[in-house]
């Protein structure tokens, strides 16, 4: 009389295991770009595959709750910047209520200064904010996250991830950057680069009869329509760019005025004489060059700057500078930097990652074996012990299926979560077994049901407390513990709703025939 209706819990478990195995092994489910290894669709995080992860706040302070009419934000920004030595105006910004979706203005100082310096500069400029807090406004934070992500992607690294998380304990936003298969130096260099690019015209100007050489900024990050990947030619590395249509006439004018686009071109004599163009990346000169006669003539005739001819070549001293330049021009300038010195950096070499993967697996298997041995010794009856261990393993399969289904990048904390779930799972199965197999045979279905219900009450209570204990961590973003808590909660839910009740039905079938 074992119909599906009587054994629906077992049927549900079989279906769930089948779905999980499909998620785990089916080649149709794997995403091509994911860093998945081996025969399964599981993805591994940095700790288990190697890479660099960084968690740090953003540089800057935000003065909030400023009452202001918005009449001249530039003047306010200048006034604040003047009161903060070493902070350029571009690092000070008034953020309108509309941008932030709030009722008052905010002022950002995106630089390394002290809180008291910001407070006195802001009040010195005639503003009275409610608070000055570390960090930047939400729009700036989002822009920074997008640009950081673009920078990593443009570098050609697969699977890099940038996110903003809110730390409840400190009421601060932190940026997490995870870059697989990149070492610490590569990632730090990439992130430390604010990405400000300027093309300066270095030229002589007549001052009271003598020639003085000065710089004029002609192009910055936003003036380019298209930027190539770094190229290598016989003359050296370069990045090919297309200048925006509306910028081109002004740039052409600059070139002619400064004498760089002179008859017959120009040679670069920096830092002494001769006009030339300088490429400056975060204050560092990465390229210097004159202009070829053909381009100079094209500029003078007005052919360059027309709708289909605005190409320009930025040569650099070495290839890595060209790469950095290209990434910065494509991803854009970061509004603010990461305060890495106030955060945490973790680097795991590929060797360590691969061995951690194996070692964590071994530790988990040993834990399962230990459970099997104790359960076997305790019950002696294989009808009870074997299904118990198998049901426990089914729970692991469900969780692995869940992990590959949602594309969770597994770390050590997730493995710890799996082990925690196996532990509570076997505890619950022991409760079910002891309750059902207690003295006095399970003569009727009614007795079975009543005992099973009692067991489920205890299990439900225990599961609820585990979930309550873990839930603060699931939302608090305390490093690795978030993954641990989420896995434990999901595992306990899967266990209480699917696998553990099924074990009750399995036992009934084994003892009642």
């Amino acid at each position: 009389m074992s119909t599906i209706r009587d054994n629906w819990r077992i049927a549900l478990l079989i279906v769930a295991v089948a779905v999980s195995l499909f998620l785990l092994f089916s080649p149709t489910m794997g995403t091509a770009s994911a860093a998945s290894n081996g025969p399964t669709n599981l993805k591994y995080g940095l700790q288990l595959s190697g890479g660099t992860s960084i968690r740090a706040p953003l540089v800057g302070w935000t003065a909030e709750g400023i009452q202001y009419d918005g009449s001249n934000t530039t003047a306010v920004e200048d006034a604040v910047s003047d009161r903060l030595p070493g902070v350029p105006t571009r690092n000070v910004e008034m953020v309108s209520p509309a941008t932030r979706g709030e009722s008052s203005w905010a002022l950002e100082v995106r630089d390394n200064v002290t809180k008291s310096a910001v407070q006195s500069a802001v009040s010195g400029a005639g503003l009275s904010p409610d608070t000055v807090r570390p960090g930047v406004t939400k729009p700036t934070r989002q822009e920074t996250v997008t640009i950081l992500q673009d920078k990593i992607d443009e570098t050609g690294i697969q699977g890099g991830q940038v996110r903003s998380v809110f730390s409840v304990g400190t009421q601060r936003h932190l940026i997490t950057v995870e870059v697989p298969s990149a070492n610490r130096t590569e990632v730090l260099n990439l992130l430390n680069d604010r990405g400000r690019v300027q093309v300066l015209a270095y030229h002589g100007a007549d001052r009271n009869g003598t020639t003085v050489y000065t710089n004029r900024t002609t192009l910055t990050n936003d003036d380019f329509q298209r930027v190539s990947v770094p190229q290598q030619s016989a003359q050296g590395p370069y990045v090919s760019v297309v200048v925006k249509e509306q910028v081109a006439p002004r740039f052409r004018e600059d070139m002619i005025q400064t004498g760089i686009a002179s008859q017959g071109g120009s040679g670069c004599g920096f830092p002494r004489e001769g006009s030339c163009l300088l490429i400056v990346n975060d204050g560092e000169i990465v390229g210097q060059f004159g202009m070829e006669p053909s381009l100079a003539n094209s500029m003078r005739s007005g052919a360059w700057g027309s709708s289909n001819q605005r190409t320009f070549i930025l040569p650099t001293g070495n290839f890595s500078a060209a790469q950095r330049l290209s990434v910065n021009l494509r991803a854009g300038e970061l509004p603010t930097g990461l305060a890495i010195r106030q955060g945490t950096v973790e680097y795991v070499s590929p060797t360590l990652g691969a061995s951690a993967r194996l070692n964590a697996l071994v530790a988990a298997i040993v834990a399962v074996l230990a459970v099997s041995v104790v359960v076997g010794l305790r019950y002696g009856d294989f009808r009870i012990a074997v299904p118990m261990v198998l049901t426990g393993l089914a729970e692991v399969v469900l969780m692995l299926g869940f992990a590959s289904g949602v594309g969770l990048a597994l770390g050590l904390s997730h493995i710890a979560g799996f082990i925690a779930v196996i532990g509570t799972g076997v505890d619950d199965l022991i409760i079910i077994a002891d309750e059902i197999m207690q003295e006095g045979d399970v003569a009727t279905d009614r007795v079975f049901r009543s005992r099973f219900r009692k067991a489920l009450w205890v299990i439900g209570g225990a599961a609820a407390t585990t979930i309550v204990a873990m839930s603060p961590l699931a939302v608090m973003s305390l490093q690795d513990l978030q993954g641990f808590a989420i896995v434990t909660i999901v595992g306990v839910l899967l266990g209480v709703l699917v696998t553990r009740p099924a074990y009750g039905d399995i036992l009934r079938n084994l003892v009642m025939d």
Partner: protein
Amino acid sequence: MVEFTVPEVDYTRYSNRQLAGVPLGVLAVAVLILAGWYATTGAPVAMGIDFTGGTQLRVAVDAPSGQADALIRNTFDERIESIQFVPASGEYIVTFGPNVDADAIQSQTRSAEQLDYRGLSEVAPGFGADVQRTALIGVVIAFLGMSLLVFALFRTFVPSIAVVASAFSDLIIPLALMDLLGIQLSIGTVAALLMLIGYSVDSDILLNTHVLRRPGDFYESTDRAMKTGVTMTVTSLAAMAAMALTATLFGVELLASIGTILVFGLVTDLMNTYMLNVSLLRWYKYEGVAR
């Protein structure tokens, strides 16, 4: 074949005072240790680099094991706090104090021929302090949430407070053991403490349910609950001990610290559940209800 059976305890031979005295005495000693530690070091437990800030380097050393230690110490200018050997992989985990230059450590590692650079993690001191605060808030909320839920489940004061008290002691005693054995608090040990809240409540809920909601006299109910509960705890204990041992051998620090703390906690839980909790329940059943 070795058989594992749960021993039957004749609780009638002991008074409530005798039963509760042992776990309460141990708890008192644990609290004293934590207080003493707090008085001398400024924190109840020694904090690891997750919380204090610092740099931890992982290297494989190409040298006879006797000389590896000296080799590592000679390589770095920065002050080394500890060197830990990972038997299975032959790697060494080198911990530096806060405020060392991680870039310098990296370049010194790279230029040392006999060292193979395997990993580096650095935590800024201020960041560690933030993590510490967050972790504390997390544990406190988890504990309060668990307590509320237990009171909601049983709706009577003494049985509920018995569960909460035994869970509290399950957290405090392992913390004191950490001080005695020189284990530092890390993210992994915090995870273990939270798992302990879940695990320790399991056997307590089981005991309470059997005694309060099942027919049969106190000693029969306790006996039945103990058979199941001890099996549960011993199974978890075996799993965690095995995991702690393997993970220590293979140098998977997170799993090793979780396993170790859970072994402490589960042993403590056996004592608390079947001495403290049982005595409180017996008092409640025979004397408390009558009042």
